[in-house]
């Protein structure tokens, strides 16, 4: 079902709902804390994490930079394995191909394992409209499907639901009352879906990685439902984002090291499956017919764009969600699209050409850089958010008042004398607002700030005003510099000449 309601309104409006939902916020906090600390433990245990991150980044960069070669190689090799490969420029084409296959197979039901791309193209809606049952088999996805909602987290889609809500949903589905006990609820879903797996006409999957050199697709999961979907039904359809390629199985080792540790803190997911074509003639299980639909849907737009090409590095681990201080407060639905969190904030506007509709998402960030620090393939999401903001302004979609404000800012900052004068005037202007050395007025632009804080006042003597005296004071009786310190400074200058020194003492850089 397409959760159309979650895309209505602005990000602020959706966020407001989330901010008032205590259960949601606690659930998000609990989940992200657990996953975040899991990642820390797993990445520390592995060791040399920064080296592996850089490796992952290089492999992805290389693959994307040569995507025409590797994707083509994958297609040729997949075909030689017996796979039917199709290409979809956009969501409509992808759905058309699926429907064509479903029609020819006279399918009555499609059972799905987790696929973000399938949500992106709204395949469930299309299937339902044609009277074909589309069943999600991932436990979390099954729950939100019953609820008619979209995922609120890339890896754990139903964290916004508590056990009572889940029990209610599943009880209704079961036609009997189920206790709000995890084992009982999961047991019910296992039994119910077992039957569905065995009866379904088509199994539909996403694709974590596609190995170019052998035409194999790889799935990572913990429940076993993706294995079921690719083993039991007679026909398999896989939806694959065009950028999901890695060159070789050797490269897969790097991804298999980065992805589970970053996503959930596991050394490896319980199941990792490499599927190379439909069943062999003498196999007694596995699909007889296998289709892979390669989906563009805005991805190729990022190629050749120096500010966004790296976005295609993403391996959909969700680590950025787990560290984002904004996501922590507002949860996944506030982002309005298929993808949430920092990656969603960039991916949704980037994939959609309708920039004006989606780019307020880019404002919902304090640009703290935690996402970049957490990303196993080092995507500079914090920089991409600024790029989105800049493009919005350049295309004339910027907020008019803000634009005027910025022009004023520039005029002021162009000239230091003007700036100093403005500060002096400001000190006078603020007088009626100052109360007990602070400003608490909740009016206009101050409303947002002062709802949660007391605003500071401009100092009586600004630094500029003090400078003359301060300078005189410090030069009056100068302390002699320690010769060791002097030497260090001279060494720095010398290194700089040779180009050896950098003022960045560390930190994550991505030049």
């Amino acid at each position: 079902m397409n959760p159309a309601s979650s895309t209505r309104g602005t990000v602020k409006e959706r966020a407001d709902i989330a901010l008032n939902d205590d259960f949601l916020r606690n659930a998000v906090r609990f989940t992200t804390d657990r996953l975040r600390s899991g990642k820390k433990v797993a990445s520390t245990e592995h060791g040399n994490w920064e080296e592996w991150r850089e490796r992952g980044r290089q492999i992805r960069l290389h693959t994307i930079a040569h995507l025409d070669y590797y994707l083509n190689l994958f297609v040729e090799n997949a075909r030689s394995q017996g796979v039917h490969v199709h290409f979809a420029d956009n969501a409509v084409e992808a759905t058309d191909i699926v429907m064509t296959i479903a029609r020819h197979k006279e399918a009555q039901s499609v059972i799905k394992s987790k696929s973000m791309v399938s949500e992106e193209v709204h395949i469930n809606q299309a299937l339902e409209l044609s009277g074909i049952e589309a069943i999600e088999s991932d436990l979390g996805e099954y729950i939100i499907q019953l609820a008619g909602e979209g995922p609120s987290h890339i890896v754990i889609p139903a964290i916004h639901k508590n056990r009572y809500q889940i029990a209610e949903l599943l009880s209704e589905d079961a036609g009997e009352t189920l206790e709000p006990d995890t084992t009982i609820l999961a047991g019910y879903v296992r039994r119910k879906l077992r039957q569905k797996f065995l009866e379904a006409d088509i199994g539909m999957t996403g694709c974590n990685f596609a190995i170019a050199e052998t035409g194999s697709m790889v799935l990572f999961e913990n429940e076993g439902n993706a294995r079921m979907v690719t083993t039991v039904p007679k026909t398999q359809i896989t939806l694959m984002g065009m950028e999901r390629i890695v060159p070789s199985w050797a490269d897969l080792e790097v991804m298999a090291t980065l992805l589970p540790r970053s996503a959930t803190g596991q050394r490896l997911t319980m199941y990792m499956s490499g599927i190379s074509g439909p069943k062999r003639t003498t196999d007694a299980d596995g699909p007889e017919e296998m289709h892979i639909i390669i989906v563009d849907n805005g991805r190729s737009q990022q190629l050749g764009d120096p500010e966004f090409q790296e976005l295609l590095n993403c391996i959909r681990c969700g680590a950025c969600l787990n560290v984002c201080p904004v996501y922590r407060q507002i949860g996944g639905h506030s982002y309005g699209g298929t993808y949430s969190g920092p990656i969603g904030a960039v991916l949704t506007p980037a994939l959609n050409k309708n920039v004006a509709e989606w780019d307020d998402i880019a404002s919902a960030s304090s640009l703290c850089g935690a996402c970049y620090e957490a990303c196993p393939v080092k995507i500079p999401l914090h920089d991409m958010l600024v790029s989105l903001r800049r493009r919005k302004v350049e295309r004339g979609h910027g907020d008019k008042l803000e634009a005027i404000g910025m022009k004023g800012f520039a005029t002021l900052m162009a000239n230091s004398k003007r700036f100093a004068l403005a500060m002096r005037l400001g000190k006078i202007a603020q007088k009626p607002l100052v109360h007990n050395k602070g400003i608490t007025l909740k009016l206009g632009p101050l409303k947002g700030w002062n709802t949660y804080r007391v605003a500071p006042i401009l100092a009586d003597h600004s630094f500029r005003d003090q400078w003359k005296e301060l300078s005189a004071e410090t030069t009056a009786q100068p302390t002699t510099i320690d010769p060791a310190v002097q030497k260090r400074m001279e060494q720095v200058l010398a290194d700089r000449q040779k180009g050896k020194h950098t003022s960045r003492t560390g930190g994550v850089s991505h030049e």
Partner: protein
Amino acid sequence: MVRLLAAHGIQLDFPPVQTCCGQPSYNSGYWDETRTAARTILKAFQSSDFVVSPSGSCTYMIHHYPELFKDEPEYLTLAHELESKTYEFTQFLVKVLGITDIGAAFPYKVTYHPSCHGSRLLGIKDEPIALLNHVQGLELVPLPFAEDCCGFGGTFAVKMADISGAMVNEKVDHIKETEAEVLVGLDMACLMNIAGNLRHRGEQVRVMHLAELLYEGVNIR
């Protein structure tokens, strides 16, 4: 900061033509306006060997200058130079001057909030801790979820006020958990944000910039 460095024989100069590093307009996507402000910075420090700033985010902003001025060759050269010679205060003290013990005494319970730009993007992690560890009598208590953003983010605090408010509320909740008397940090923007919320909630925690704390600590002796 000026006095602290003077006490170690470093005379700071303050070129008055500088106005603002331009971060607010840069982050909101107004890059032309940013360049206007940035040019004052580039002009101000042309002849300096070392440029020190009491703000990690301003220092980091300067690393964006080469990108901003890629189409203006003269300013581009200045930008590269400035990038290589600008330091955040604790970076300068510890990495350039090699000073970790500034000779301060500050017998209070203190907790430290590492500002985002400084810690993540400039790599300032050890320097402030080294300085704090050498302050006599200071009890440094770790801040839970210290690395989480305080919610300022410049115009974010105004544009997305409720989200920002929720973030600073949580930051102050964690500060309260430490039962510290003083919150110390490296960036006035963060500190102002947190202080504003502390005041709003009637909390007595004192908010200080590390330079302030060290200076007071030196004068206590």
